């Protein structure tokens, strides 16, 4: 193999979040977490809500992600996401407010309400961002 690095690109509809060389990527696929090392077989998977981790040398970094796709090629991982935030970019206060808002609404509506799922997903994302920020 000509290179032992992976190029990791993360993009959301609003911007390109990340474009770096890394040694390893661990992504939260919807069918379960998967790790990517250089030379991985081409692979296309959906990504759920969770933390995407990448390693540069012995430094581990985290990104809070939500819904999208990862396209893995031998030396490249491209992740397209609805939302992605680097751990040091996350505004914890805002995430906390989002969590409280979602919790408040969930307490008000019944589980049969069609908004229940929406709010549950919002809560999920807020909790995810808080947990990534605290790593």
């Amino acid at each position: 193999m000509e290179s032992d690095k992976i190029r990791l690109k993360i993009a959301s509809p609003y911007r390109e979040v990340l474009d770096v060389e890394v040694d390893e990527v661990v992504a939260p696929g919807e069918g379960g977490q998967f790790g990517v090392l250089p030379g991985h077989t081409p692979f296309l998977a959906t990504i759920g809500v969770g933390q995407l981790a990448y390693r540069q040398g012995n430094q581990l970094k985290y990104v809070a992600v939500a819904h999208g796709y990862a396209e893995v090629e031998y030396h490249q991982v491209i992740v397209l996401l609805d939302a992605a935030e680097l751990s040091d970019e996350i505004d914890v206060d805002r995430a906390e407010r989002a969590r409280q808002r979602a919790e408040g609404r969930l307490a008000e509506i019944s589980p049969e309400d069609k908004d229940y799922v929406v709010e549950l997903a919002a809560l999920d994302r807020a909790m995810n961002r808080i947990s990534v920020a605290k790593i």
Partner: protein
Amino acid sequence: MANLKDIRKRINSVKSTQQITKAMQMVAASKLKKAQDSVVQARPYASKMSDVLASLAVRVKPGKHPLLERREEKKVELLVITSDRGLCGGYNGNVIKAADSFLKTRGAGGETALLSVIGRKARDYYRRRNWEFQTEELNPGTTSFAQAEVVAQAIIDRYVAGETDAVYVAYTDFQSAMTQTVQIKRLLPVEPKALAEDEFPVEYLYEPSEEALLTDIIPRYVATQIFRMLLESIASEHGSRMTAMDSATKNANEMTDKLTLLYNRARQAAITTELMEIVSGAEALN
């Protein structure tokens, strides 16, 4: 002397108009900068998305997904994207003109044309002409991907239900602050980018299955397209407003110059008349 006062009034009014156009130009310039940035920022996602779709679509049999399937275009939907606010030169007029001729040619061939609008200008224009809208949204200039997704979903639902056979979008493509061109592009059925001659589709592992991925990716691709077109349109709106306001400011400048000249002449004439009167009065006394 009333004439002098009138001219002074005109000068003042032109000057205050100029202040407004100047301010609008500056606001438009800074908004354009922002809008342009978001167009550029959104590009990697959009282009990667069409790559993924292209590589996926070559390996899936046509007809696997309703949104890839081509039908005879009997019922055509047109989505017109304009702005909410005016004072931006020919921006909205151009989109509407293109949309009108599209509707006319399509309508003439015995096809049914349906209409959706984003933006107050298009809505008002077509409402006056008694059109009914499939989707009707405002365009406040702060686009969110969520809004694009909502519009996309409605359009997809109609397509899948067979209410439409093809969907086109009339929007303004942003090339630079000076040039924007109105475009009418087909949104549905989705036509994946063809692979280049020397490109080979890579064999992928899929998780979940190809079909599941495709069903998931296509609606998102459509939303991405709409999102991109909205961003382009918004950038064009600001670019167009900036140019329009720039020329308005210049015109106002010219006008003040002309009026000032006129004013000075009138003033001079008044002084001359007054002097003549004094001189002839003094002469009469002698």
